[in-house]
């Protein structure tokens, strides 16, 4: 009797623990299965091409992670991916699919480059603040506009963001080659070089620019925003069902515009760091496709801002090894794209396992 009573009291406690723990395990396990599956398909692909998957993996490890140099190579690619992915992940929490982050990145770069030169006379701190405001403001406004189109006119945000990206790139090219062109930039039209005081340098230890840390902080902040604030809660509700959220009196329209604008502003920071830490001025090299890789990163991270960090590091490492793979295995540079595509497909497909893995269902472990 006593035993039974004890048991009776204990079970719910264990079940409750399982009920919170198991979904978390599931949330990690399922994409992990997808990731492994994607690599497995890619391994088969390599074998069919007469290449060794083991050699491939060894080279990725060697070029991406094995030494201080490799890690620096990887980390130096991560910063723009973090910001670009956030530009996809934030609206995704409202159920919006944004694929035009590239436009916000280049406009952010343009804003930063132009503001930095215009504010060269001010103290560095103020000048840099001006650059941040210009980059985030311009890029945020641009993506916010997409949100406005969605809310006011019902224009699909996926298509609108893409069109706006094409338009942003045209405007960027136009302004860089006309009004803001530095006459001294001969064969590569650019804005005037930023003054030294406004350049962003490398961090100590890992010689990668500060954008990496800012990007990681931005990911953490966005996670807090989504998971731990009322605003984030409202956004998630609206993402599940806009109609239900409206009925409950949530400001869905403003949430959409706000999250779009915030995502855009963060993408603008990618442009800012590219200009201030890498290129030193705004020019066409900024149109490098980070916005599109950001889509991949965000989806692989299932739009979880914290998960964006490891995913970006993973993709950065694969990209870092692309050159060595070209040279050592005589594979074309597109191999990387094939791998990314296969992982992407496999991870999306793995979502169908949600709720189907017996081991991870609370019911498997006893009464609930």
């Amino acid at each position, binding site marked *: 009797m006593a035993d039974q009573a004890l048991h009776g009291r204990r079970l719910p406690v264990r079940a409750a623990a399982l009920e919170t723990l198991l979904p978390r395990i599931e949330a990690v396990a399922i994409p992990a299965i997808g990731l492994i599956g994607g690599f497995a398909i890619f391994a088969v692909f390599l074998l069919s091409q007469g290449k060794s998957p083991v050699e491939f993996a060894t080279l990725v490890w060697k070029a991406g992670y094995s030494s201080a140099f490799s890690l620096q190579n990887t980390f130096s690619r991560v910063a723009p991916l973090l910001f670009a992915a956030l530009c996809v992940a934030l609206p995704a929490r409202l159920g919006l*699919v944004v*694929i035009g982050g590239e436009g916000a990145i280049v406009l952010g770069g343009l804003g930063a480059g132009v503001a930095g030169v215009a504010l060269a006379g001010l103290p560095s701190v103020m000048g840099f603040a001006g650059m941040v405001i210009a980059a985030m403001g311009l890029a945020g406004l641009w993506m916010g506009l997409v949100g406005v*189109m969605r*809310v*006011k*006119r*019902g*224009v*699909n945000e*996926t*298509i*609108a963001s*893409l*069109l*706006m990206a*094409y*338009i942003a790139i*045209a*405007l960027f*090219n*136009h302004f860089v*080659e*006309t009004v803001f062109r530095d006459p001294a930039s001969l064969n590569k039209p650019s804005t005037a070089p930023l003054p030294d005081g406004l350049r962003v340098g490398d961090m100590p230890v890992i010689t990668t620019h500060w954008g990496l840390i800012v990007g990681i902080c931005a990911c953490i902040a966005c996670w807090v925003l989504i998971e731990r604030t009322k605003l984030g809660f409202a956004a998630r509700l609206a993402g599940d069902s806009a109609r239900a959220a409206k009925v409950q009196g949530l400001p869905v329209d403003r949430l959409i515009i706000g999250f779009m604008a915030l995502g855009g502003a963060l993408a603008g920071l990618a442009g800012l760091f590219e200009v201030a830490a890498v290129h030193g001025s705004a020019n066409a090299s900024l149109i490098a496709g980070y916005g599109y890789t950001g*889509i*991949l990163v965000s*989806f692989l991270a299932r739009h979880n801002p914290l998960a964006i960090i490891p995913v970006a590091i993973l993709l950065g490492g694969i990209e870092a090894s692309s050159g060595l793979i070209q040279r050592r295995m005589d594979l*074309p*540079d*597109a*191999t*990387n*794209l*094939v*791998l*990314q*595509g*296969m992982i*992407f*497909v496999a991870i*999306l*497909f793995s*979502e*169908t*396992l*949600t709720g189907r893995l017996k081991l991870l269902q609370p019911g498997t472990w006893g009464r609930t």
Partner: protein
Amino acid sequence: MSADIGLWGVPLAILAGAIRVSIPFLFVALGECLTERSGRINLGLEGTLVFGAMAGYAISYETGNPFVGVAGAALAGSLFGLFHGWICKFRGVNDIAMGIAMMLLGLGLAFYFGKGYIQPVAPDLPAIPLGNWSDIPQIRAALQINILFFVGAGLALAMWWMFRQTRVGLVIRVVGDSADAARAMGMNIDRVRLLATAAGGALTGVGGAYLSLAYPGSWNEGISSGQGLMAVALVIFARWSPIACFWAALLFGGAGALGPALQSVGVSDGYYLFYAAPYVLTLALLILTSSPERALRGAPGELSITK
């Protein structure tokens, strides 16, 4: 060998450009129209288009027959479509996201296998000279209309008729508008969508083959400048009507010819802005024709992009 036609060159170039440039948009838009009418959206057509361009070029080169190349591109496209259609029937798999993934995969595979075909010259698709009545060489050149243009125009008509008049069209529409109704009528929703997506992929593959085998008529990694993605936008403002897709593609192609045509008569300031004309025009049309209040007129009810 050519007459000086001065400013008349601008409208002529826009007309000729509209026909030349619109064909890939037309095929992708028709393919996407068919897929979306069945209630799925395939955003991965950009990848299918580029893979079709590569496959068509490679096969045309290997066989020496461009029509075999087109058929091969259609087959390759349908395989991409089949895969998308199959994988999206699983619970929890999002068709929009899967489309983006397939786009990446399609581009990757096309570039991977296309490396060896950048250099060779493959036989091109023939054009039909319809301008021989004119003495003006520019008009003759403008009316060198590729055979695929007529195929595309015919397909638009046929598809319009199919949706209105045939049982197949009815089935696709019902499946696209309401899965519940379709189920009640005993239709196999997954199979209809699978086939519609495969057919859409095949049409997209043909559009890709046009890029590599007709205009610009060669294979390289920059052959597409987003035609596959833009066509999805065209379908929306064409309101899922095949006939409207045809006009939308022509309009978009004509807008794309504006920039070079204006420069050729000496209007060269701000060419980046002229080059953006098709995108601005599309966006403006989308804004004007959309409405926040009700679902889009003509939109299939099951379509995730309009929900």
